[in-house]
């Protein structure tokens, strides 16, 4: 029997610390493990006995890459528990803030973490030596996303202006106008990004994923929507626990989520696109068509194009919100603490983020549950590795290792979210 092991002890260009181990026997991959060894920080434990109003700022610290996603899931879940619906301009401002995070986080992944794989560089700084203009374009695009978060949230990382019920201060209309100018340039940069990524060489592979994403009411999903899947799931966030479960595996400090009925599923750009492409803005839909994406994209390597399309859509959506913005009468609605349970799922850049809180009558948190996108995607990432690596076993070790790392980076895993990240360990038995 020929045994082959490929290992990567520390994955680079991912958020957090993780490792990878692939074991093959006689040319067939037996196991593929994405180990997450980022040390646990126990958020769900120390959230207990904190006030409901503290959850947005505390959970933001789960992830410095997508703090807005944590703040949004937390506020929606708390408002659900308190029986409040926030609508009108405050809802639009939340969508605008989330657009900023999508632009910033996706652009970081497209230009700095993922594109170097396709163009043969160790990272964006190395890539800049040969492609300075392109890297500059990426940095400008990322900066436009950050500009939205900084203006609306106070700062790019761990914004301070978000609260349950609304904001501490709502921006004046005239404050948003300079953003519009920057976003018009960013929209051009995003369109160029779609065309640039569409020209990369992609391995010709497809996977039969069950896609899971929110579906908005005629809008591309960000803050709200029903949880739907490509195999017929259609539920409210409050029903999440009935249909999904988490398990704890020894090689990971992250929990793995599964659909109780069918097992592994995929959330994130590919899933959102497959389930919501019709809700993209006309310019983003046209760019996707031109890039040859079709109505469903099941090749995870091509997720970089879908991310670029989503950046374009977010720039367009942000411009629409700024154009139609009317200043709210008050920056936040009034809230009364009460006992109850609240649920919310929102779309973080890398996939669906579910929060559930149980509150005491005085507004203190009795129980918290958070399921980040990377926990949900981890079983599918491991299946990708298992399926793809079998075809690549004859490649030299370095090339095989690189392909495996790329397979993981396709899904923009955030190990800080899922707890922590990655070593590649390929065991081919030879």
């Amino acid at each position, binding site marked *: 029997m020929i045994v082959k092991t490929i290992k990567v002890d520390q994955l*680079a260009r*991912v958020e957090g610390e993780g490792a990878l181990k692939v074991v093959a026997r006689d040319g067939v991959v037996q196991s593929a493990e994405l180990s997450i060894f980022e040390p646990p920080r*126990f958020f769900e*434990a120390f959230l207990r006995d904190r006030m409901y109003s503290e959850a947005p700022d505390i959970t933001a610290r789960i992830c410095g890459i997508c703090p807005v996603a944590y703040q949004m899931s937390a506020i929606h879940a708390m408002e659900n528990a308190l029986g409040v619906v926030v609508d009108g301009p405050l809802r639009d401002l939340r969508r605008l803030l989330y657009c900023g995070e999508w632009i910033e986080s996706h652009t*970081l992944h497209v230009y700095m973490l993922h594109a170097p794989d396709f163009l043969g560089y160790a990272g964006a*700084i190395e890539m800049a030596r040969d492609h300075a203009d392109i890297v500059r374009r990426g940095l400008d695009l990322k900066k436009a996303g950050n500009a939205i978060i900084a203006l609306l949230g106070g700062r790019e990382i761990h914004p*301070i*202006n978000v609260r349950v019920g609304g904001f501490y201060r709502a921006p004046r209309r005239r404050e948003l106008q300079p953003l519009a100018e920057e976003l018009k340039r960013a929209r051009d940069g995003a369109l160029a990004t779609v065309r640039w990524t569409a020209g990369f060489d992609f391995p010709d592979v497809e996977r039969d994923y069950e896609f899971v994403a929110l579906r908005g009411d005629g809008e591309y999903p960000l803050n709200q929507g029903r949880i739907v899947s490509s195999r017929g799931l259609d539920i409210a966030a409050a029903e999440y626990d009935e249909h999904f479960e988490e398990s*704890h595996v020894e090689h990971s400090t992250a929990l793995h989520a599964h659909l109780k009925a069918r097992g592994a599923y995929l959330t994130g750009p590919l899933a959102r696109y497959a389930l919501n492409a019709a809700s993209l803005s006309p310019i983003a839909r046209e760019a996707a068509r031109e890039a040859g994406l079709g109505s469903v994209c099941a090749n995870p390597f091509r997720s970089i194009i879908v991310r670029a399309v989503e950046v374009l859509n977010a720039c367009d959506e942000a411009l629409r919100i700024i154009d139609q913005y009317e200043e709210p009468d008050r920056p936040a609605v009034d809230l009364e603490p009460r006992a109850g349970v609240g649920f919310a799922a929102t779309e973080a850049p890398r996939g669906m983020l579910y929060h559930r809180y149980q509150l005491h009558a005085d507004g203190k948190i009795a129980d918290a549950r958070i399921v980040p996108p990377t926990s949900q995607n981890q079983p599918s990432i491991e299946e990708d590795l298992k399926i793809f690596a079998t075809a690549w076993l004859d490649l030299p070790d370095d090339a095989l290792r690189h392909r495996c790392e790329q397979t993981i980076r396709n899904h923009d895993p955030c190990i800080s979210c899922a707890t922590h990240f990655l070593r590649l360990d390929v065991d081919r038995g030879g």
Partner: protein
Amino acid sequence: MARIRPRLAVWKFASCDGCQLSLLDCEDELLEIAGEVEIAHFLEATSASVEGPYDLSLVEGSVTTAHDAARIQEVRKQSRFLITIGACATAGGIQALRNFADVREYAAIVYARPDYIQTLATSTAISDHVKVDFELRGCPISTRQLVETISAFLAGRKPQTPPHSVCVECKIAGNLCVMVGHGTPCLGPVTHAGCGALCPSYNRGCYGCYGPMETPNTPSLSVWLSKLGMDEDALRRVYRTFNANADAFREESERHDR
């Protein structure tokens, strides 16, 4: 002949990645910085890694495992200059809330199999383990202060990061005092400057994410906060967030422990 550039390394311990992301958030300065220093180890940004020693190490995150307690010793040995970036590395971070609780209970709340989890009972600052040459405050750090700190290192001078309170920054910004003006509790009087009085500029009280300033008068502030309606429990929680294990905040929170 090619100039020999100082070697920069970025290290991650228990954290959210936000402070190292701040380096990538310097969109206007990043390529210039990369020209002035050799980015020798920065896993989040590049898979290329150069062996030590390093001239400047930026350390993010706190020590929460036995493995990390050993690893920080190695990082120190490899580094001529070691600068901690952010509240986790400087004070233990939000994960230091375990220091006030039983970590085994915490593990049982989060994980089905707590026996799979290897962790220390405490989350501690880098300076509790090795000598630190400079500490950059904030949860997260300010990109402006990060660029200043790297520039100062390259110029061989001390970084200019004023040690006064957030109150001074409010005065500079011309903000109305949120405590005096509308009775909003604020940690500004005891919190280290650096954010530019961000929260008060958004009509919100400071929540202390830059940690305590030098010699803060926290007992006095607590008297004012209780006059604004905060009970003992709220006082304990307000000091017990992202810099909970910084001495001044820890001691003050313990004064309000039931």
